């Protein structure tokens, strides 16, 4: 066995290893490019893989600090979590009361605050120190900081505020502990079934990111692997002629490729580990993270590395196959074989799947699968079909006898040697297609997931705020705020008549405080009950069906079950910003109840609430989002698109260098014959133009089909989803034409013949 390995296998491994440290500038360039592509690829994919891992860690910490509140009679610590905002930044304020030495402490908190004390996150502490407006909100004494185990992300504005027991809303239960996030219990907060838990926003974004990256990256890897392909083919053919079998030559080529790719992968991995360690406080949009959360399991890293190396080896093997199979056909310029028919297969699959996806012939799940298959096949088709398209276009153009010589030359080269030109545009085409898909996803996200308002000041309404279970003392405190026009402590009851056909909203509050509920109130006296009559144009009073003197039973509220008579006295009101149509007003001053506040300056009001009544939770400011909300998703899509287009451009540059080398070889004999460089430049531009026009048309057709299918599957308007793509394609077309001219000029510049060219070509 050892002898067999030493004699039959080892020599080929040795050869592969020797070739990857081969000499020569081109070889070094190819090694460097492939290594760099692998490094960049691994780095970016690891970054994409880190997104859901970081997000999971954040969710777990968020879950673990959630108090378990029980309605028990035993006295104990009480808590209320209030979501607020500082400008566009979410702020969480946890009001804590009745703290005892043995009260359960949330993660990251060493000591719980007493009344007048506050414990803050480092980001909030910085903000308090730097911003007088924030300092105003928190007049309490800072007695500690929250550790990172108690925070979702380093930018989080979080505070535990100690308050007197009376300040907490009535009926707040006792904290008996915090949720146990162990054994992935926190995942239960993600959804009711396995599918919902699987398809969380971070995972969907991560998968989209992988799509953004994976495909252009594969193209980039392929271009690097096949850099200077003719020389590589010659070398492999030489090995075959020496006596290497296909398998042996493949083995040596695979070893060479694997060694280079491994070096690149390791470089990318090391770079990622080093960068990940210093990312504390880095962010993408509003998505911040702790460096310690970037902990990708080693098994996944190993799998990724194996995939990247495997892909490089696979592309190399596939590209070298013709040369290994027919070594005697390899000439100085490599293999001049036409594109094979299998390249057309993805082009057949893509339209079929995309057309079938939105039909009613398949189930919703099958629709998604078909859409995925169609999109993937479209991208693969862009890679595989472009040489065929170019070859056909070249042959067609070549039949036009009236073409000038330079155009004939371009057409013949495109028809008979389409190998490298498509590579030039494939990377860009795939990137453009993926960018189009990204915009499609972006449009869908914007349509389906309304971006939440992150600051109350961004919304004009409501000018009224509502809080439940408030004591009069708290209300009186808030009334001191300059932002408060009027405040009302009230109780809301619902009564229904004996036949249970007609009901009425009953509001108890004082005459003075009724001003918070209505714009204008007629003559009023405390201690009375009134039937509410709305001013002209307001029809509520006529619809209750209740008449003065009717008996109603109170169905909801503290007086549930009691009866009352619909009052005869009326009171006229106008306006109802509060939103509750009141039918009966009972005027009395309450010690506690719900609080309705009419405002004239929202920003000031929220600051005052934070300062004067930190334990009160108002409705309307609880939809604050953080981390991966729709905005962050859009940011990530934008970042993904930027990276995708960058990868496409890098692929373009590398292919340009490759093309420059190839055109130099091909043009050498013509230059020796005396063909003017200008003519070669025109031929070059014409050939590039041919491939870009045919490639873009193909890309445009596939993208249009994808958009059509997408809009059908997601039940969206075709115009809505396609509108953003038009400027994309126009700008890409203009950009490509400029690039073509640049490349044509660069590749044929300084085309002086060297002795090497003359000897070789």
């Amino acid at each position: 066995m050892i002898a067999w390995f030493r004699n039959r296998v080892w020599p080929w491994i040795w050869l592969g290893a020797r070739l990857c440290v081969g000499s020569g500038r081109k070889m070094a360039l190819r090694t460097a490019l492939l290594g760099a592509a692998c490094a960049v690829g691994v780095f970016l994919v690891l970054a994409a893989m880190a997104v859901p891992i970081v997000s999971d860690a954040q969710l777990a910490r968020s879950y673990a600090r959630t108090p378990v509140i029980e309605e028990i009679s035993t006295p104990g610590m009480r808590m209320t979590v209030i979501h607020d905002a500082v400008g566009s930044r979410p702020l969480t304020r946890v009001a804590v009361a009745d703290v005892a030495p043995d009260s359960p402490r949330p993660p990251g908190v060493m000591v719980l605050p007493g009344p007048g004390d506050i414990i803050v996150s480092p980001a909030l502490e910085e903000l308090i120190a730097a911003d007088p407006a924030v300092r105003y909100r928190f007049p309490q004494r800072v007695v500690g900081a929250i550790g990172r185990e108690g925070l979702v992300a380093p930018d989080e504005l979080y505070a535990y505020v100690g308050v007197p027991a009376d300040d907490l809303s009535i009926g707040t239960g006792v904290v008996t502990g915090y949720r146990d996030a162990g054994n992935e219990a926190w995942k239960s907060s993600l959804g009711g079934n396995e599918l919902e838990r699987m398809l969380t926003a971070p995972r969907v974004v991560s998968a989209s990111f992988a799509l953004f990256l994976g495909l252009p990256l594969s193209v980039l890897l392929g271009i690097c692997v096949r850099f200077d392909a003719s020389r590589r083919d010659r070398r492999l053919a030489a090995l075959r002629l020496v006596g290497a079998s296909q398998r042996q030559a493949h083995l040596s080529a695979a070893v060479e490729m694997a060694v280079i790719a491994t070096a690149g992968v390791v470089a990318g991995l090391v770079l990622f580990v080093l960068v990940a360690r210093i990312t504390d406080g880095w962010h993408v949009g509003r998505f911040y993270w702790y460096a310690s959360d970037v902990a990708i399991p080693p098994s996944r890293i190993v799998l990724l590395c194996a995939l990247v190396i495997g892909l490089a080896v696979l592309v190399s093997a596939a590209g070298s196959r013709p040369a290994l199979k027919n070594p005697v056909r390899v000439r100085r310029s490599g293999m001049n074989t036409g594109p094979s028919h299998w390249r057309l297969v993805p082009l057949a699959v893509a339209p079929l799947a995309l057309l079938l996806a939105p039909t009613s012939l398949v189930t919703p799940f099958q629709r998604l699968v078909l859409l995925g298959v169609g999109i993937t096949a479209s991208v693969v088709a862009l890679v595989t079909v472009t040489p065929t398209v170019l070859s056909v276009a070249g042959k067609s153009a070549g039949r036009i006898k009236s073409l000038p010589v330079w155009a004939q030359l371009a057409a013949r080269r495109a028809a008979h040697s389409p190998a490298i030109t498509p590579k030039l545009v494939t990377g860009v085409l795939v990137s453009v297609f993926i960018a189009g898909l990204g915009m499609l996803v972006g449009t869908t996200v914007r349509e389906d997931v309304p971006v939440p308002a992150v600051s109350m000041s961004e919304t004009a309404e409501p000018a009224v705020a509502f809080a439940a279970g408030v004591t009069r003392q708290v209300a009186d405190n808030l009334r001191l705020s300059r932002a408060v026009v009027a405040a009302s402590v009230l109780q809301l009851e619902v009564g229904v008549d004996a036949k249970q056909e007609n009901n009425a909203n009953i509001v108890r509050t004082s005459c003075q405080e009724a001003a918070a509920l209505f714009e204008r109130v007629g003559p009023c006296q405390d201690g009375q009950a009134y039937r509410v009559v709305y001013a002209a144009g307001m029809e509520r009073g006529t619809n209750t069906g209740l008449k003065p003197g009717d008996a109603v039973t109170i169905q909801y509220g503290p007086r549930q079950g009691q009866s009352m008579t619909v009052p005869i006295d009326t009171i006229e009101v106008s306006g109802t910003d509060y939103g509750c149509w009141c039918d009966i007003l009972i005027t009395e001053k309450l010690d506690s109840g719900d609080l309705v506040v009419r405002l004239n300056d929202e920003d000031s009001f929220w600051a005052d609430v934070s300062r004067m009544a930190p334990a009160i939770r108002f409705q309307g400011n609880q939809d604050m989002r953080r981390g991966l909300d729709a905005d962050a998703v859009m940011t990530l899509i934008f970042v993904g698109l930027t990276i995708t287009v960058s990868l496409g451009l890098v692929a373009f540059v590398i292919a340009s260098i490759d093309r420059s080398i190839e055109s130099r070889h091909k043009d050498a004999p013509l230059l020796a014959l005396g063909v003017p460089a200008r003519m070669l430049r025109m031929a070059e531009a014409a050939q590039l133009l041919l491939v870009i026009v045919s490639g873009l048309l193909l890309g445009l057709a596939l993208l249009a089909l994808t958009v059509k299918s997408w809009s059908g599957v997601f039940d969206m308007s075709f115009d809505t989803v396609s509108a953003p793509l038009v400027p994309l394609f126009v700008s890409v077309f203009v950009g490509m034409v400029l690039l073509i001219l640049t490349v044509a000029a660069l590749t044929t510049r300084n085309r002086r013949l060297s002795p090497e060219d003359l000897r070789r070509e």
Partner: protein
Amino acid sequence: MSDIIVASALVKTLGSTRALSNVSMSVAKGEVIAVVGPSGCGKSTLLQVLAGLLAPDEGIVEFDGTNLYELNDNARSAVRLRHFGFAFQFGELVPELTLQENVELPLRLTGASAQEARRRSATMLEELEIGDLGDRRPTEVSGGQGQRAAIARAMVHGPSVLFADEPTGALDSKSGKGVLGALLGIARSRGTSVVIVTHDQHVADNADRVVEMRDGAVFGGIEVAE
């Protein structure tokens, strides 16, 4: 002399061209055969078919009694590696390796130790008068020097048969004569059979037998007078 290669009724069509049309020929041990004929007559195709590189559509090629095309690719490659040598117009050296490493290649690939391969390749390079160029890469030497290195590589492992396709075609007359002299000198001294495709009358004059081809068919096996 017994035949080392026997080819019978070879037919090979490339595209719409019949490159070989019922060709039969044999190569005796130690014999030097020159295959001549106009361009496109099928000389190179014949060489490739005889060498186990290109399967014929019909007919058989036997090496030492074994039908080459009944062997699988691995076995046929092993025959080429151990028993055949190749020298082509452009040398077909591996561009990333030095001349010495190129010459070492067949030895290393047949399991020789690095020291053994280095020693034998150095001797062979000396024999071909390019011993001082072993550290250079193919692109750093002249065409004649590269061709000598290709011959060194083709002969270093002591093949039974050397196949050469216009080995002097890219060289000037003087270099060509030098390369041919070296090739035939080594082959004859070691009893290696040589099949050489050429347009060069000088090459044909130095062969034991000249096989003339026209339109894919062999028209004679002329013994060359001493």
